[in-house]
């Protein structure tokens, strides 16, 4: 049942008579390879360009962890899961020392209470006000760089003396220019997926630097 009137070539998606999945599967496999190659290239470029700042941020974070600081991560949607992954990596690492880390998107009671009673823009801000100390570190994931609730939380955290780190995509959005985001790693891509994949690699690298820079435990 091709589209009538010879328009089938224009609207192949109307063609329900397609039965051989072979060509589609070949296309999909090629597409997967191409996307993965794009992802790998982006990751390599961003890691190379960010190495110096990653080292600096990692050292600063290690110093804060040594002094009893805690890591607080935040993000919306898929980025909240990337924040949760970062928290797992720091808090329950595959190797090295577990460090105090938690996600501000974890507690559904707090999140829904603030979101419902006040507004979703303050769900992270109010937690920062209530819980954050000057020695803490606040890390936020936003592919657009423009999430209002992250920006408000960054402002407050910065004001309190925290170390603030942002991971953004596209051109970095507000996070790239906000003075409250002391370090902003921008993944220059138009694809949210490719951005998130590279943000994961940045998180891993940051964790590696921190672990290497930590002062040994116990009295010297």
């Amino acid at each position, binding site marked *: 049942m091709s589209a009538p009137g010879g328009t089938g070539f224009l609207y192949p998606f109307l063609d329900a008579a397609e039965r051989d*999945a072979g060509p589609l599967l070949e296309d*999909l496999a*090629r597409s997967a*390879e191409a996307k993965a*190659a794009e992802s790998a*290239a982006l990751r*390599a470029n961003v890691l*190379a360009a960010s190495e110096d700042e990653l080292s600096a941020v990692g050292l600063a974070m290690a110093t804060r962890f040594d002094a009893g600081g805690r890591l607080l991560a935040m993000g919306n949607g*898929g980025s909240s899961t990337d924040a949760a992954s970062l928290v797992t990596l720091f808090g329950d690492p595959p190797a090295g020392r577990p460090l105090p880390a938690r996600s501000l998107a974890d507690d559904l009671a707090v999140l829904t209470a603030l979101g419902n009673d006040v507004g979703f823009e303050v769900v992270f801000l109010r937690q920062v006000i209530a819980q954050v100390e000057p020695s803490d570190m606040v890390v936020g994931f936003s592919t657009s760089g423009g999430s209002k609730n992250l920006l408000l939380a960054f402002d407050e955290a910065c004001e309190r003396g925290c170390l603030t780190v942002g991971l953004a995509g596209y051109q970095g959005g507000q996070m790239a220019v906000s003075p409250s985001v002391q370090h902003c790693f921008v993944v220059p891509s138009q694809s949210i997926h490719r951005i998130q*994949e590279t943000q994961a690699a940045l998180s891993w690298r940051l964790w590696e630097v921190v672990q290497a820079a930590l002062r040994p435990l116990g009295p010297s």
Partner: protein
Amino acid sequence: MSVGTAAQSAAGPAGALDAERGAAGAGGLPPGFGVDVAGAALALARRFAHGGTLWCFAPAWPAHAHHVAVEFVHPVVVGTRALPAVAVSAEAGVAGLRTLCRAGDALVVVASSEEPAARRALARAPAWGLTTIWIGAGPRPAPGAADHVLWWEGEVPSQAAHTGRFVLSYHLLWELTHVCFEHPGLLEEPQVCSGPACVTCGDEGRLVEVLRLGEGGAVLVRAATGLEWADASLVEGVSPGSLVLVHAGSVLTVLAEGSGE
């Protein structure tokens, strides 16, 4: 057949990213991964097209289960449809999944091949009538442990979970699944069987899960086709949750719990 590149890091998992920084533009997928994720995407699209729900389970890394679910429910690309996908928490586990899932659904698991809860869930999935996709790293699961196995074989699971390997895997799965919706003719389940198979001559043995014990050795079991009664007087150690093989109304054997095979 395989369009994968051989650009796997030779430096081992620990130095994977270091090595990659020196190899910009490398494909980075394990050999055959592209073909595997293509097949998984088509299978998943077929389940969605027939009203199935995608259950997402990552007992050791719950964030990945949530990421997969939000990917499908709230797509980042304009014009793509929202699809039913739900993360099952590690606390809910196999018991939660058992209660929630229905025959015709799909299950994506992000876990190492050693993860006990993942193995228990996947071993039961045929009895629940689920199409299964297993994303992971490290030693490959036994052959046939899931319908589709998307694997990063040369990597350490606890590292692959954080370097973006798994994120890339389910991003590709999501992107390719939506391409399949542009091919409605291919979303019909393939018709490979022509005619009923016979219980005896086919030496039939159906994998089912015991739901509860009845009287006189009878057990109520859950099969992909629905609930039924079977006689369990020929076997020992059957309890609710046991995976068993039924032939002509009799339980012939009890499978090792969650062997994953």
